[in-house]
């Protein structure tokens, strides 16, 4: 029975939080450590019920710092592991997200964004953690963050997040928001055989010859877990290919450059965007997460009234699709309209790439999402 309960094949009516939990189980996640926080608690609640059904471990830790640390520990124990939180907890997790980047530990961190800063709006939507997801822990490292726009995507993207984390050996962030987290919609869970189940690559070399932090051409080293005879030393200090601490500029250069490059050099494989009508567009609306839903509607409204407006939706906010924005900017687009529930975090990225083009940021500080009319007004202002 336990084997069959991990993928609930069928059609469901789920909110985004529950869909994320089901996505995790379908991806093979067997360990969850977390701490209650609105609006992400539903994920923990569902995992508490569901993980024991598949012989997994659910543990409520004493805080988010501990949750993130336990997730890393479980990953080194060979489990696919996950935690879920919102802004204040995400801030606490930053420390060990950095450790996860340095130790190259696959795992998934879900952030159901609410209004911030600080305690902010616990029960209401926000998108203010986009830059924190990118730069939140100190130092330099590559990041992957996925932004679902529906419960179905929350399910699909959580599976994808596990695949990417196992593939690139980093904590991958599912950067959803309160609106998607609490929105109920139809979610189709496919049969297990149609779901990807990617596992971290194992070393082929014998323990005496294995260099656990040598990236190779791919820049992603294979991973030996605890108890597999490799006797690794894994540290948050700057280390050499053996994993031994080396406090020098040369070791730092080699390691940190690889931690960044393993994502940068694979950006084209990782980045997912969706475009509608961008070929002939004068104005392009760029949106992600909950806002993408109203942005799409506003684009449809504008096109009906004859305006050449395109829509670009970010399914991955990080890595950011720099190349594509540059291309579009070079192809004679007049400008970009970027609605988001913050004061211009992704709009700044768009502007950085769309040199010389008009960029209009449509901001709400949190608590509400744009109506299509608000975005339409911005499109008309630019046109």
């Amino acid at each position, binding site marked *: 029975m336990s084997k069959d309960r991990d993928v609930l094949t069928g059609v469901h009516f789920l909110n985004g939080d529950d869909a994320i939990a089901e996505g995790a189980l379908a991806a093979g996640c067997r360990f969850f450590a977390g701490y209650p926080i609105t609006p992400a608690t539903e994920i923990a609640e569902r995992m508490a019920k569901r993980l*024991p059904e598949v012989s997994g471990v659910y543990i409520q830790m*004493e805080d988010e710092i501990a949750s993130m*640390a336990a997730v890393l520990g*479980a990953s080194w124990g060979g489990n696919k592991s996950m935690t879920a939180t919102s802004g204040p907890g995400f801030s606490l997790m930053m420390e060990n997200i950095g450790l996860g980047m340095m130790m190259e530990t696959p795992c998934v961190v879900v952030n159901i964004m609410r209004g911030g800063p600080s305690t902010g709006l616990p029960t209401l939507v926000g998108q203010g953690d986009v830059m924190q997801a990118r730069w939140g822990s100190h130092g330099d490292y590559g990041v992957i963050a996925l932004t679902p726009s529906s419960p179905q995507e929350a399910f699909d993207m959580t599976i994808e997040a596990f695949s990417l984390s196992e593939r690139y050996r980093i904590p991958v962030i599912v950067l959803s928001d309160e609106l998607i987290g609490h929105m109920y919609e139809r979610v189709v869970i496919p049969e297990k055989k149609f779901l990807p189940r990617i596992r971290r690559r194992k070393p082929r070399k014998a323990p005496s010859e294995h260099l656990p932090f040598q990236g190779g051409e791919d820049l992603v080293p294979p991973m030996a877990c605890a108890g597999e005879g490799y006797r690794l030393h*894994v540290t948050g200090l700057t280390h050499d290919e053996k994993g*031994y601490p080396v406090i020098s500029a040369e070791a730092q250069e080699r390691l940190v450059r690889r931690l960044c490059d393993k994502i940068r050099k694979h950006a084209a494989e990782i980045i997912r965007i969706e475009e509608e009508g961008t070929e002939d567009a004068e104005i392009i609306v760029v949106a992600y997460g909950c806002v993408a839903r109203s942005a799409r509607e506003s684009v449809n409204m504008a096109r009906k009234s004859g305006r050449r407006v395109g829509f670009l939706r970010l399914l991955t906010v990080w890595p950011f699709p720099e190349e594509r924005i540059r291309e579009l900017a070079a192809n004679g687009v007049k400008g970009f309209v970027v609605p988001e529930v913050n004061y211009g975090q992704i709009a700044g990225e768009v502007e950085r790439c769309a040199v010389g083009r008009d960029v209009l940021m449509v901001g709400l500080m949190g608590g509400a999402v744009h109506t299509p009319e608000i975005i339409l007004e911005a499109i008309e202002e630019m046109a």
Partner: protein
Amino acid sequence: MRYKLVELEPFQPEETQRKIDETHGLHPDDQYLKPGRIPHIWCPGCGLGIVLSAFIKGLDSTEIPIDNCAVVSGIGCTGRVAGYLNMDTYHTTHGRAIPFATGLKLAKPEMQVVVFSGDGDLFAIGGNHLIHAARRNMDLTVICVNNFNYGMTGGQAGPTTHMGAKTVTTPYGNCEYPFNLTHLAYASGAVYVARWTSFHARYLIESIQKCFAKKGFKFIEVLTPCPTGYGRPNRLGSGLDQMKVYRDNSEIRNHINPMEADSELRGPIVVGEFVDEEKPTFLDRYEEGVLSKARSG
């Protein structure tokens, strides 16, 4: 008289160094040390080498395969222990060794997971994690090397610094009460609690052996000299002088309530095996009270 004289092989420094680099070292216990990692970074007179050696001897005397044991440590002088041991070792962030070890243990229940860290790491920045892991009776062995100060950063006061003691951040003398670590661990739910000093190496080895044979949250505090960080401002002399203090002023009192276990700067220092109880662990309870119900439901 008959003589049998043996020709000694001439000393070959390069060959010796090669052995140290590639095959750990020349002492039998060196198989437990990672190749090429020695010499360590600890100061002369530090007690950490004794504790590390006791751990190796404790582990060696058990039947536990080395690949069935993982060591997790935090940040600080003791945090560096993990890097020297030839097994799966994880050197985590400051204070977070216990929650990392919790995740590791739950993912790999068959492994022995040992947390090796200092008093500041485990009881200041990591204090909350320690009490909660003890409360859950997580199956971990925690070896806390207590040198009464933050050694790595240059001898600042911490949660164990004695009242009145001088450190670089308490130049007028410390005005805070220190924790009694054994009392705190016991009150939080630890099933095994012992305190030794680096002078009591044999007792320490026995305690470590017991921890390997016992399930639940096990806590060993080891008082060690820190002549550089703590000894100098408090005029405690060398590491050897402090070992003499441990020898002359400590008293073994087994099975007492840890609340009564004093440890003053120049003694008296109460050491011993204070607590040894049985209680189902987190995983026992999880298996019995959660997994079995979820499976049958």
